């Protein structure tokens, strides 16, 4: 009824090729942005920020990053945790070396450093693919964690090997450390997520994204029609690692504040982000959001329902969480292998025809 392109006339090519060509979609997008930027910062409290919104925003950035590599370019990677660690440690070294520089610059630089490291570890992708590449990136994961544990320079020679985020600000507003207000940390991460999503969306719609998808769909055919695999694969690794590095830097500096590399950026983090994009939908920016929301919010919702509402023992709820999340993942993979994004697409198709399906 409301959701259709009929009557929504376009008079220029720019209009026709915009991200949200359907009016309803476009307005929904503006409403989401308005709520996220204009309303939530005024009502947010510490619990909502630290338990739900910050992890969601940060995982969404990581998922966008990984989705570019796995979903768009078809290069399987299990090194996400390691690359997030690179972002976190780069941010830490920058924060402690240059205390007067704005956090924005530190986080972006941390992303840049991760991009370089990502390209380095992406080099094997030129020769190997599929499961073998997954193993090569797995090596990156273990090597990077080992490196940050082994070399004291990375953690400024602290006795315990932990890194702690000192208090840093942006334009005089404290962003990191315990005294940072919830709205500031939330907005800081939101800005990064919004810009990342915008960049990623437009990259994947343009030439770069098309070469990635060509490589993904059939690398030999892509090469024959003139796609340079070196350029396509390396750019995918660089862009992907850039976003993952930003996510790692925010994860350490804004969200956790103190990090121990083996525990926070271990192999389970790589799997978690991979699950996010598989459940959300490979090759979809919306899917990255949906997957991150699903895996961050669901455990918390289950905990609140089980412990606070039903009053069950905490250990039983924790075990049930694993069972339910696991069962849902399997269910999704069987019923909708293309993830939440595909569900959304199907829902939109139905809405277009509603209320007169043929």
């Amino acid at each position, binding site marked *: 009824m409301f959701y259709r392109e009929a009557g929504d006339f376009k008079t220029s090519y720019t209009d026709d090729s915009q991200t949200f060509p359907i009016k309803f979609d476009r307005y929904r997008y503006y409403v989401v942005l308005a709520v996220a930027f204009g309303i939530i910062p005024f009502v947010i409290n510490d619990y909502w920020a630290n338990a739900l919104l910050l992890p969601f925003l940060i995982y969404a950035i990581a998922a966008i990053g990984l989705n570019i590599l796995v979903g768009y370019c078809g290069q399987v990677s299990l090194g996400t945790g390691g690359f997030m660690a690179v972002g976190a440690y780069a941010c830490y070294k920058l924060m402690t070396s240059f205390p007067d520089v704005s956090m924005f610059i530190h986080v972006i630089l941390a992303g840049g450093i991760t991009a370089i490291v990502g390209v380095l570890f992406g080099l094997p992708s030129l020769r190997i693919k599929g499961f073998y590449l997954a193993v090569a990136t797995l090596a990156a994961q273990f090597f990077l964690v080992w490196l940050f544990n082994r070399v004291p320079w990375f953690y400024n020679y602290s006795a*315990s090997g*932990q890194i702690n985020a000192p208090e840093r600000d942006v334009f005089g507003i404290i962003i990191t450390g315990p005294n940072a207000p919830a709205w500031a940390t939330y907005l800081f991460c939101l800005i990064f997520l919004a810009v990342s999503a915008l960049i990623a969306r437009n990259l994947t719609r343009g030439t770069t994204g098309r070469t990635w998808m060509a490589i993904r769909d059939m690398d030999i055919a892509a090469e024959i029609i003139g796609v340079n695999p070196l350029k396509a694969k390396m750019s995918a690794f660089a862009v992907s690692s850039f976003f993952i590095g930003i996510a790692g830097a925010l994860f350490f500096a804004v969200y956790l*504040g*103190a990090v121990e590399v083996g525990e926070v950026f271990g192999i389970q983090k790589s799997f978690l982000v991979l699950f996010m994009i598989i459940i959300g939908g490979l090759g979809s920016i919306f899917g990255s959001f949906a997957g991150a929301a699903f895996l961050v919010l669901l455990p918390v919702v289950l905990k609140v329902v089980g412990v606070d509402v039903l009053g069950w*023992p905490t*250990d039983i709820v924790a075990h049930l969480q694993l069972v339910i999340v696991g069962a849902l993942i399997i269910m999704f993979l069987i019923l909708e292998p293309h993830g939440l994004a595909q569900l959304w697409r199907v829902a939109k198709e139905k809405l277009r025809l509603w209320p007169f399906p043929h």
Partner: protein
Amino acid sequence: MKLKLATAALSALMAAGPALADLVIPDLSYRTGPYAAGGIPFSDGYNDYFTLLNERDGGIGGVPIRMVECETGYNTEKGVECYEATKGEGALVYQPLSTGITYQLIPKVTADDIPLHTMGYGRTSAKNGDVFSHTFNYPANYWDGASGAVNYLLEENGGDLSGKKIALVYHNSAYGKEPIRTLEELSKKHGFELVALPVDHPGQEQKSQWLQIRRDRPDYVLMWGWGVMNQVAVQEAANIRFPMENFIGIWWSGSENDVLPAGEAANGYKALTFHNVGTDFPVFDDLQKHVVDAGKAAGAGDQVGTVLYNRGLYAAVLAAEAIKKAQEISGNAEITPSEMRAGMEALEMTEEKMAELGLANFGPTFSVSCENHGGDALVGVTQWDAANKTWTLISDFKQTDGEVIGALIDEDSAAYAAENNIEGRC
């Protein structure tokens, strides 16, 4: 069903509202995951003692205690979520039983004005209350543990360790790395050689480390392990026939869970401790009567008297005594977290007080002050008897090397103060 759910949700919301008439104690426990075997008994002991106070005395100073349990799974992200979820309810003191979560919480509790008690774990330099205003680690910390172990070995060897070789098998994390610096200093002072062998999380794979021990033949092995790592290490030590009486674990590597899987072979294994073992104390009779027999025990109720249960109980005892002290100082029965902090800072545990609680000689005597948040650093040694399946205290609580540790604490806390622009407050 819908109505039922709605009523349940409503009543939960009402129950979760600020009920000021309680003393709220959050319990960030881990009853699941790879470290659950250690988390369950500790949490049971912690809960049971407060249940006992509620049942027997009607709370503390006439105010009932409300426990809020939150499952962390030894995971820092869940720990942060638990902290944020419970702090709004007026939580008086946090005891996360995880060094990783402690590091997260130290700046947060300071900003929120809630005390944090990390008994025998966490950041050692938090002993310096001048810098760490809201963190307490009495009665003993890791560096006391390291020094206590070396002191014990000195005693065994007639006061001379020169030329001896001591290996440290440690969990490759913030927790396991803590004692290294102290042991390095002590090795310089006493002339023994230190070999550090890291074991990665979770510690099921230790073949190469023990192969190295077999090759290097150290005189003694110290261990900083937790969870499954402990039992694997004890088993591996038995496999290479390393003499168990020369193998000493920190207090987190000295519970029944760690030695039972190795059976007879674990006989003679030693562990450090800062509290007594067994159930031979009057308070356990009360526990049996008011809590266990009444069916109010936390968890399965089968952990009473194990080493980690006793440690959880001891943590609860110290928290309860600090609450009493805080009530005494502030004059109100319903104290705030800030008053609780003042109570912890003025805490004094004497032999008379312990006897009065039915816990004579259960823990060392100590007092806390503004400068000293770590107590008097007394460490004892226990030994495992595989035939009777019991731990016994073989060396009483003794003073550790304050000179070496004090200097290291000053150095580390000064670095933290400089990093975070903290001015001394004492």
